[in-house]
């Protein structure tokens, strides 16, 4: 719609940019339904102060979040596959044709998330009581 002229401090000729791409993209968003529903996005955006009557802008936000989660999931998938491949290599290839189920575990997530700024420390095991797992000789009560 409007041509924006920016002045660059480095002295380069002003660049005329058009918002045509953005506008087209926004109009195409009306056809695209993001996985994150609009109501959910609107609720959380309104909680943080985001106010926009245009649904396309809300959809833009939800698509950004969807992309973010998709990238994390694909990274976790890579970790999961590499782990499975390592396991099958150890077992000397009797299970070449067999494909095991790909399950998203917290371990894979905790391996994939630091790249995106989330550090998760996953507990390896849980104990019922402080003396659980200790040698029987150390236990006082039976």
């Amino acid at each position, binding site marked *: 719609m409007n041509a924006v002229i920016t002045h660059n401090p480095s002295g380069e000729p002003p660049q005329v940019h058009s918002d045509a791409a*953005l506008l087209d993209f926004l109009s195409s968003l009306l056809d695209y*339904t993001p*996985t994150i529903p609009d109501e959910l996005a609107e609720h959380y955006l309104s909680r*943080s*102060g985001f*106010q926009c009557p245009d649904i396309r802008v809300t959809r833009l936000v939800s698509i*950004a979040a969807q992309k973010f989660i998709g990238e994390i999931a694909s990274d976790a*998938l890579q970790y999961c596959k590499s782990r499975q491949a390592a396991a099958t290599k150890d077992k000397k290839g009797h299970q070449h044709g067999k494909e095991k189920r790909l*399950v998203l575990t917290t371990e894979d997530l905790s391996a994939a998330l630091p790249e995106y700024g*989330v550090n998760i420390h996953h507990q390896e095991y849980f104990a019922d009581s402080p003396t659980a797992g200790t040698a029987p000789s150390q236990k006082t009560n039976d």
Partner: protein
Amino acid sequence: MKQWQQKQAKIGRREVKKILTNGAGTGSSGVSSGSGGGGGSSGDGVDAFARAVAKVAVSQLCEATGFHGLQRSAVEILADIALRYLSDLGKAAHSYANLSGRTECNALDVVLAMEDLGLAGAAETSHCVSNSGALRDVMRYVEYAEEIPFARPVPHFPVSKKRVPTPSFAQLGETPPHLHIPSWLPAFPDPRTYCQTPLWDERKSDPCLDKLEQAQQYQKAEQSLSSLHLQLSTQGALASDGLKNPQNLVTSSLGDSQLVSRQQWPSREQDASSDKAALEAHSSKGKVKRPAALAHNTFLAPPLPAGEKEVSHITPFRGIAEVDKWKQDSAGPVTLPSVLEVFAPALKPVNKDIEVVNSGSRSLEEKPGRLISEMKDRMPVCLTFDWGQKTHTKAMAAKLSLARTVSPPSTKRGRGNTLSWKEEEKDEKCKRAKQILAQAMEES
């Protein structure tokens, strides 16, 4: 990017702790990090719903990526991350809009926020927003990624309860009590809601008087019931007469009302019930009105003569062969066989048992009739389970005692021929008993 990373570091740990303690899905988690507006106590239910929806969306995305299964804790982590990302985007976009002097955000604010939050696009200040790398990445994503709509329709939330405001003075049509209160303000509550108003009906209840009244009412009811009973019995007698002579129904005073009642009994039903109620209330007038009321009462109406109304034919029971006898005697009263005659076959072995006990005396066999008569008089039975000499002596002793006990009551009843016959029997019994005793003593 760094700020966000630091934030996420804190959040990640807290989030995991929460997951481990099974606190996921309830209430706000780590909102102190600054994202979102801070969940209040009223937002707990909304939060839970929103989280559930986010979990579903995230699991759909993972499924599209290629996973066959998901760990629950992993799903919760991802859902929380997605919600935080949304909130952070919104917050950043809003702050950019405020920076430009606007309250409403637009697409460019969002793009700037996306760049801020570190999507793959480069964070450069020199290029135009519409050419930002972040936006280009998103556009590329939209083009190539598969469209996965949300699985279920999500209703608009949060649902707020519509509150009906208190009506104003003007709406109620009341004038405010004081001059300084305008009429468009909500009306005051009723004084009865905050003041103790006096009771309207204070009935002085005297327990003695109440009991007296109750007793009087009972008396009245009893009187009406007894008179009603009398009327019923008289009407019954009249009704039976009326059956045999239908013409008499017209002549008799009650008959008129009866005839009338039978013809019009559907319409009179209501009258009868109302009349009855009036009856019980006024017992003094009862006797005059009662015949008329009874005539109206369908339940007290005389039975219909045979053949007037079609009734299904009832076949009598055909169990025993003696039913034919009953058919012959259908005109008169039905004669049922006596209990003794019916159970005679069962009684015979009983007599034999008694003979076994008294094996010493054969004379009893000759008189079975006497035994039956004794049974009629309810002979007490002395049961012993040992066999030998002792049983004989015991049985004889019992018989002797019987003879003694039977004689006094027979003398009391004694009228007519039965007395002499019983005395003779008694003498014979005594003689026999003595004989048997003597024999038993000889044997021992």
